[in-house]
């Protein structure tokens, strides 16, 4: 399945990768990472957050985890890495997502900090920096944002001027993760006024100074500072990539970054559920554990359902990226090129996962606080911190608004370029709307027949709304943000629901229906709710531009394409919650 193609194509369950299929090596990596986090991070979370008192904690922990090889796990062996495949990297991200501020430091270092050199560095630069980055000996940060250019990243004002053999940098960067201890700064600056370009600046270069640590809402353990450049002179060779091609670095690095952020927050969800259910089992009110209460069960179940769906979507894409990397390598690309191109191919899905994961985690931690009640509001307990730390994920690596627009925008772009044929299916939908359904029973012998039909239909609802919007606004659609948000929400929901159903279907094949019955309920419940949301978003979208009969016909169409037999979601959630309560953790 090509990038973005999920919107018009139904993938087969057998073709998706599911986390249940992770191999022994991957499971080993998982437990190694988890051990590290459980033993080194969680006992120290409060200390880590008191960054000003303990500024060395995170750098030291980075060194330590570097020793385990985890920082360089994804880097090619020739640069000191372990060259693990992309699915394994995903497992690592998932587990690191349980480590709060520390995870942010690791992600900034291994992702946006290291990848620009891996992808765009010269051979010399790679040899010089990657081995150190891989062990953690060198720590990296990424300086894109400025006080006046955040989402509008390309509007950066920092300047770079070539003066003989040196570049001279002047400007100010803001919100730079790891800035306090970084040895390398990947810096974006304008050459000749408007040629957006990347550079590598080493710590200690004269003229480079740091602002104070920002006082933040969350991830208080993560170093975040301004970075000032005042006539910072760096060798000519520290140019990264080509002059004027900095946007390629910035955006491509973000594709992988977003994917990994999605995986991390999904791991965070699992951790939060574990903490929440343990508390719910212990805490008694009215003479019984609060986990006995239906209202609490609903929360636990819904937290798990969203996590399960996000998990399914994450590994589905991890594997597609992984396959694409292999395919590109087989076709002669270097490992770095292959990874870059593969992530670019799935940039729509990467953006979706980032939004999906960060919003799932926000939901999960919010409910976790609620389950904790008053103690949830106390610094004595872990959920307050998780609640605060979650929030940043919707902001960095491109705000969720920017990512939503990007997902839809890319989809339209691919359609325009002929890479994604939205037109033919959109035309078919018009025809189908006028087709008389045989009022007979569906052939629902297959498990998931109804679900898959519903998913196929939901995609039609999206194409219907998107097609009509495109026809109405043509090139102007990119400025219709509300509609783009609606379309993005619809796409995210259908993609996620489909991922959950496919994963479950595959699992049934592997383990049988009985062993998968809760997963079946989770997938169905997610789908059932998702269809309601898709219906609503579709309604909002088309009502935003159509009127009269045209609107009415579209609404009938959207409603028809989001229909699903009512299911007993209360019973489903009870069954799911009971399992969570029994295992006292996230058990799926």
């Amino acid at each position, binding site marked *: 399945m090509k990038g973005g193609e999920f919107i018009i194509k139904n993938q087969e369950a057998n073709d998706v990768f599911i986390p249940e299929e992770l191999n022994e090596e991957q499971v080993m990596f998982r437990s190694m990472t988890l051990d590290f986090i459980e033993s080194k991070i969680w006992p120290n979370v409060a200390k880590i957050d008191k960054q000003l008192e303990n500024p060395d904690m995170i750098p030291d922990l980075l060194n330590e985890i570097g020793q385990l090889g985890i920082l360089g796990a994804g880097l090619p062996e020739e640069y000191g890495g372990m060259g693990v495949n992309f699915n394994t990297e995903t497992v690592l991200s998932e587990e690191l997502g349980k480590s709060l501020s520390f995870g942010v430091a690791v992600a900034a270092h291994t992702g946006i900090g290291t990848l620009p050199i891996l992808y765009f560095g010269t051979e010399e630069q790679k040899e010089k920096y990657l081995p150190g980055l891989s062990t953690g000996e060198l720590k990296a940060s990424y300086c894109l944002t400025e006080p006046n250019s955040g989402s509008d990243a390309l509007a950066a004002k920092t300047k770079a001027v070539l003066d003989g053999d040196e570049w001279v940098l002047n400007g100010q960067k803001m919100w730079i993760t790891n800035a306090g201890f970084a040895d390398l700064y990947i810096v974006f600056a304008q050459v000749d006024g408007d040629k957006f370009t990347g550079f590598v600046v080493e710590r200690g270069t004269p003229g480079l100074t740091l602002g104070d640590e920002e006082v933040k809402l969350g991830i208080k353990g993560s170093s975040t500072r301004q970075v000032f450049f005042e006539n910072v002179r760096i060798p000519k060779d520290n140019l990264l990539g080509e002059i004027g091609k900095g946007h390629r670095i910035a955006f491509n690095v973000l594709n992988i970054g977003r994917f990994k952020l999605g995986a991390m927050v999904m791991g965070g969800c699992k951790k939060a559920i574990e903490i929440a259910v343990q508390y719910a089992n212990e805490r008694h009110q009215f003479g019984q554990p609060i986990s006995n209460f239906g209202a609490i069960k609903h929360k636990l179940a819904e937290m798990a359902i969203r996590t399960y769906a996000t998990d399914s979507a994450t590994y589905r894409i991890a594997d597609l990226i992984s396959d694409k990397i292999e395919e590109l390598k087989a076709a002669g690309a270097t490992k770095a090129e292959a990874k870059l191109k593969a992530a670019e191919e799935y940039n729509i899905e990467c953006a979706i996962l980032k939004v999906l994961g960060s919003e799932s985690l926000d939901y999960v931690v919010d409910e976790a606080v609620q389950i904790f009640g008053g103690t949830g509001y106390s610094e004595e307990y872990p959920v307050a911190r998780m609640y605060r730390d979650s929030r940043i994920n919707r902001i960095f690596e491109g705000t969720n608004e920017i990512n939503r627009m990007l997902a839809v925008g890319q989809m339209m772009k691919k359609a325009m370029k002929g890479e994604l044929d939205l037109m033919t299916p959109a035309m078919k939908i018009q025809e189908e709307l*006028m*087709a008389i*359904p045989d009022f007979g029973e569906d052939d629902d012998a297959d498990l998931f027949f109804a679900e898959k039909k519903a998913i196929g239909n939901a995609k039609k609802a999206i194409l219907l709304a998107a097609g009509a919007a495109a026809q109405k606004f043509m090139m102007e659609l990119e400025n219709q943000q509300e509609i783009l948000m609606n379309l993005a929400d619809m796409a995210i929901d259908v993609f996620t629901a489909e991922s959950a159903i496919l994963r479950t279907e595959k699992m049934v094949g592997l383990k049988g229906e009985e062993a998968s019955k809760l997963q079946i309920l989770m997938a169905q419940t997610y789908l059932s709710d998702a269809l309601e949301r898709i219906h609503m978003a579709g309604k909002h979208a088309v009502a935003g531009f159509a*009127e*009269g*009969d045209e609107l009415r016909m579209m609404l*009938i169409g959207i409603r*028809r394409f989001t229909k699903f037999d009512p299911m007993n979601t209360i019973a489903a959630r009870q069954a799911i919650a009971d399992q969570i309560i029994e295992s006292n953790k996230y058990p799926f």
Partner: protein
Amino acid sequence: MHVIEADKRKIRSVAILGSGVMGSQLACHYANIGLKVFLLDILPFDLKEGEKEKIQARNRVGNTALKAALKSNPSPVYTKDVARRITVGNMEDNMSWLSKVDWIIEAVVENLGIKNEVFEKAELHRKPGTLVTSNTSGIPITMMLNGRSDDFQAHFCGTHFFNPPRYLPLLEIIPTEKTHPEVVNFLMHYGDLFLGKQTVLCKDTPAFIANRIGVFSIMAIFHLMAEMDMTIEEVDAVTGPVSGRPKSATFRTCDLVGIDTLVKVANGVAQNCPNDEARELFTIPDFLDKMVENKWLGDKTRQGFYKKSRDASGKRVIEALDLQTFEYKPKTKPRFESIGTARQSDVLKKRLKILAKGSDKAARFIQALNLKVFAYASNRIPEIAGQLYQIDEAMKAGFGWELGPFEAWDVLGVSRILETMEAKGEKPADWVVEMVENGVEQFYKTENGARYYYNITTKSYEVLPGSEENIVLDNYRSNKLVWGNKGASLHDIGDGVLCLEFHTKMNAIGSEILLGINKAIDVAEQDGWKGVVIGNDAANFSAGANLAMMLMLAIEQEYDELNIAINYFQKTVMRLRYSSVPVVMAPHGMTLGGGCEMSLHADSTVAAAETYIGLVEFGAGLIPGGGGTKEFVVRTSDGFYEGDPQLPSLQERFTTIATAKVATSGFEAFEIGVLHEDKDEVVLNKKRLISSAKEKVLELDQEGYVMPVKRDDILVLGRTALGTLYAGIEAFGVSNFATEHDQKIARKLAFVMAGGDLSQPTRVSEQYLLDLEREAFLSLLGERKTLERIQHILKTGKPLRN
């Protein structure tokens, strides 16, 4: 010599000399408008001994031709009895008839010698003052003056009708220097008002206006496509409706016209226009010569650029000629991004702009073609036409272009195009350059409903002739709308009259239009307007109710919503009659189903001659549910006098609905009972339709219009009628004329038309009938076969019999 003034001249009878395709078709059309027509042709060459005395035999040429014309499709006559106005004769025995007629129309073969002989003979009988026109597409008119009297010359003028003359709206009028101005005025006016044509004044130059420019365009296309290496399908894709040209685009048009005719016209120009700067383009390309050689002349030889044939499995396929290999290959459907994008808009002006911005082959092709056609047209003034609008009008009416070259040029920006021409080496006429230099940036402008053109002689804007008396809604677009929504606009068309224009897809009637009608009438009543015209300038008045909407609701089994929708439709239609202002409908072209029901209800309907109107609901598995069935019952009841048997007339009306009969002209609409002598009328020239409807509103207002009284005196027959109608349906079923489902629909219709299962004839109200009608309509929407019919119509445009 006396020449009577144009507005005093009366035409009662005409003589047509020559009964070829054009002559016989013209005879029908002159008869259509109520004239007595004499159609004369030569004696048959093969007259046998015994036949020489027999009139029938002597008139054989004319008789045969007329018969063939009457049988041709589409029909040249508005109604069948029109033919009775035509008397056939021959040019040996009956030339004396010419002394009785008001107008002699020559339509013999295109041969100057023969034409002159005919005129010579005609002059022997012609009375002074009688008009004489020659119908030709190629021969210089001036050459026909030789030997003619002064009176003849003053009353003589060239005309150029396009075949078939009933349907093709262009009439070129080509006076000679001797033609008296009053004669020219008369023809311009009469052709417009009575023959219903777009008359265009031409100069006597080869091929006149439309063919000169039209054939130039075709020749330019041939050259460009060779240059750009394009196939005929690709060219047709971009030179069709997307760029404002007819559906037949370039090559289907050539096939229709005939390749030989095309070659003749092109050769004519090449030989007779030595100073034409684009003369070289008129050189016939090899492939055309070869086609003529092969007798691949288009439709008349069953193959031209396209050919219908059957594939291996016997399926009908259309093949297209590959100009490289000269072989026919299955027709392809080329796709271009520019065309795809442009097609998304219903508005030609927008499409033209999109194409002008495109960069693919199709877009570049049309851009280049436009430059050539614009430049060529500009250089033809004053050579072939005195003013630019004449060229535009000729192209629109003669070649079916949606916009003439100067109008299209306006859309794309006059000076912008001039710049491109400069860059591409196209040479426009100096007057255009000068016009722009003087700060005039548009060939046309519109102000307060009137349209102005740039007069190249006075170098200033002047009112477009006819634009003041003919109401063209497009000219009102720049004015503020009185009211509007996505499906309808309410214009102030002056003198206290409103015009509600539909503009949905195919003018299908949905909630926007219904709202528009209610709104228009409300506004008129409340704000003191004199009345409302419901009319539009689209190709068709309305394809009927929005079936897609009904189908979707029916599939979802939303019967309550459907009931509400149909009820609203009925109420709206009733408003057309029951309001305190006169409402006049102006149907034209296709006016089907719901559109027809509206016409039935309006205070008056002013229909174009070319109106194809009828209650076609049966084809969609339904009965008329917007008051149409009710109105037929009312009309039956009203046409019935005490003591008369009412049943036969009810049966006739029942059959009209049950066979989904569509009138083939406004006149025939009276015969099938859709238009009504007491309140409705027909206008020949569609362009005058809205202004005539407006006149009608003013007339009704002047007469002191009051709202009609609601009816509760409609006589329905109940069981008596029901039994008879059911029996008839049964019989149709038995003899396989009607399918099961046809019979089911027919029984529902019968039930409504009988007024239900009443034990005896009863007087009922309109609402009673409307309720019956709605109930039947709704119940049919619950039938799968009805839904299948609707779906089929939506998909293919054709009814399904199931």
